[in-house]
């Protein structure tokens, strides 16, 4: 029994190392699926690439809401949240935008986000969703006067239908 357990310990740690080396993701077929299932359950397959090898740009969803009277307001999902919540909510839009590689999927997600905003603002009849990334100059560029800014990557406009209940 002890020998079996020692073998299990060793096998698990081997998978931990293999995951860190990005090896398990290269295994295909039933064995690969089995390994990825075990990795997901146990966390053995993670590669731990926090901010590595480089820090990616922050992504956000910005909403421009318009009323029939022509009033406009802007907001983001993170607005007014605690840091932890803001980070998670802010992460959400970018993660889904990157993960949904198909254009129809992206539009569906943006539509879902737009619907949530229209639901939160019954007075609004139209919402434009902008997916933006944070363009941060390097330190050298910053010293020369460059300043960070949000850059639009994708935008879509959604209009409340006449029979939609607010």
């Amino acid at each position, binding site marked *: 029994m*002890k*020998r079996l*357990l*020692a073998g299990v*310990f060793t096998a*698990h*740690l081997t998978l*931990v190392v293999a995951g*860190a*080396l990005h090896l398990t993701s290269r295994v295909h077929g039933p064995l690969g699926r089995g390994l*990825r*299932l075990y990795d*997901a*359950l*146990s*966390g053995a397959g*993670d*590669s*731990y*690439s*926090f*901010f*590595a*090898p*480089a*820090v990616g740009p*922050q992504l*956000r969803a910005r909403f421009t809401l318009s009323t029939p009277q022509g009033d406009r307001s802007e907001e983001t*999902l*993170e607005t007014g*949240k*605690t*840091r*932890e*919540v*803001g*980070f*998670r*909510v*802010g*992460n*959400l839009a970018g*993660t*889904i935008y990157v*993960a*949904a590689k198909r254009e129809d*999927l992206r539009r*569906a*997600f943006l539509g*879902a*986000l737009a619907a*949530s905003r229209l639901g939160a603002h019954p007075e609004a009849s139209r919402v434009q969703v902008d997916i933006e990334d*944070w363009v*941060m100059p*390097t*330190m*050298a560029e*910053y*010293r020369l006067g460059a300043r*960070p800014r949000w850059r639009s990557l994708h935008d879509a406009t959604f209009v409340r239908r006449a029979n939609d209940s607010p």
Partner: protein
Amino acid sequence: MRSQRVGHLSTWFRPVSARPLAGLRVGLSLLLLLHLVWLSNDVLSLHGDRGLIPWELANLLRDPWLPGLPTLARALLPLGIGLHTAVILLLSAYAGSLLALALGYSTRLSAVLAWGLHLSLVMSGFASFYGVDQLANTFLFYLLLFPSGRAWTFASRAHREETIPVGCLRVMQFHLCVIYLAAGLNKAMGRQWWNGEAIWQIVSQPIFSTFDLAWLARSSWIPMLAGWTTLVVEVGYVFFIWPRRTRKAWCAATIGLHLGIGLFMGLVFFSSVMILLTVCLFLIPEGVPAASDARGLSDDFAPIVRRLMARDQVPGVAVGVVERGHLVVARGFGHRDVDRQLPITPDTIFPLGSCSKAFTATAIALLADEGTIALDAPVRRYLPDFWLQDPVASATLTTRDLLTHRSGLPRHDLFWYQAPFSRDELYQRLRFLEPSGPARSQWRYNSLMFVVAGRIVEKVSGESWETFVATRVLVPLHMHRTRLSADATEADANHASPYALRDGRVQKIPRLESSSAIAPAGAVQASVRDLAPWLAFHATGSPALLHETMWRELHRPQAEMPASDQPEVRHRSYALGWIYESYRGHPLVSHNGAIDGFVVHLGFLPETGQGLIVLMNRDLATEALMAIAYSAYDRLLGLEPLDWEKRLEEAPTALPTVRETALDFPIEDVVGRYEHPAYGPLTIGSQGHRLVMQFRSLHTTLVYQGKRRFLSLTPIADGVPQLSIRFSTPERGEPLELFVALNFEAGDPVEVLTRVSSPTCHHGGSGVANVAS
């Protein structure tokens, strides 16, 4: 080979405290619970059926074969529970399981629930999760697999502290090291982490920005330094977190790194989890802690000791049991001095005899641990003047061979016993001792090689063996009343007097003197109370005098020994100053010691971390000693006790009748003084038609057996066969030689002594003069 595998396995299953896992259990579940409360206003937006992202769309992007929250919620639909209610119920169950886990209620079940629900949240809410959620999943998984004990639970008051196999802790520690190493190496592959841009980018992103740090652009060395520091801390984690000397410093650096992340990036939850992991897995002591309700020995044990003492006329016995690093049983039976009716107490000092060998082995291990010596380097690297009779053995024997009885020399106990010469002279005379076989060919118990090991300690450290052992072993272990010589023990009022059976009655005998020459193999003297930390160190590795690898090396089976007479004792191997064996299927590391008037037993059970001390002041009472020891182990292991009193009953040994043959040569022809270059002088005198042999204090009468052979009327010592000697028939001009079997095992060499003087003539010959040269 098998015993080595058993030893290897024991390194995975050595018991350590469950407190590190308990700390992780409490800390992680509280942090997750706090985090859930923190997210409570938004948790339904992130995970609910009416959240920001519809479940159907999210399902298109995540792994379909792992059940997320929607799957679990839909599973409740047949019960009439709507999706929204189901989500709330599942989130409540998650919170409840975390609370139960923190409080220690049904920890395994709580861990299973917490892990399963956490995983489902990670699966369904993948878009809003980040690395720390996956780390939490990983360590919840470990908490459901491994026992986290009852430490820091409401149940801990009603139950004794639990231990866990060390492998559980090591797996998690190793995993954490992989996390840091992978994170560090992945960063190191990016240029941003070397030129400081990574730090600049992170602190400048609106999502992380806590302070206005734009000024960093003008002081780019600060983010560069921060980047390098991050790389050093993360990559160095695996290298510096294990050595005890650097562990605290690296823990402090790691905690500092995460405090910085929490402060400057606002990732408080992430930082808290990472700090918790390092604190629990590397800072909470894994040594087995104290407990007031130790198992100890059952009530029927003391009567066994008393019966054995009465049966074998043992004046006094001291017994100690060490559990989880603490002396939980400390008892004295009988008297340390019968005439003065002085009782044995847990503080009575006894000579440990050969149990001293583990002290010398530990001294060597300390030097090897700090890299001053190598266990497998030739002895001559440290002692260029090391010479045995066998030149190959002289050149190739290693320190490990010395400590595992693989020198090829038989016991040669009469060589050192009552030896009138110094330790240095004893060392110089080793070259004249006959081996019984080639080095490393077989295990042959030999105390003299521990004297050589002690000399290595002296040569390498520049201190005497006594000073080194006192300062590096006794002081750190707080063994303040442990003595390293018989004289020092005599000066302590509470010491045991030696007794032996003489003519069927137990009598006080003189304490063995002149033992300083053999001190590294047998001079340590200690009480039950002083031996408790010694056994605790060997049983649990705490306090950490040695790195774990070297500590394990002391107890790892290394030289196969002859099988035991007892069928319950198997796989006997010698470690370093300890014997490793399996007792009734459980690993046992122990050693006996015997010196005039005393027998002692020290041992510990690696599986449970329990240690046993049995000290007795009667010569050669080994049967009673082992009956007590095995009876104690049965109880410590919780096994059905065997009747060791009956099993080890000493069979009455009738003295054999010695046949006597009429002399066929003039007895005066062999009378005289004989000399051996190592053993020294031995005198043969005559008493009528018999010979009288005097060797140091040994005096024995020899009767003729024919063909110039004589046999002692009685054994020269208890427990050994009768002494057999033979005289040569010298040709003209040749010296008379005496052949004596001073070692008593089959195959042992016969010592050859040369007559150097007689009442009628004087022969030259090799003698002490050779030794002194």
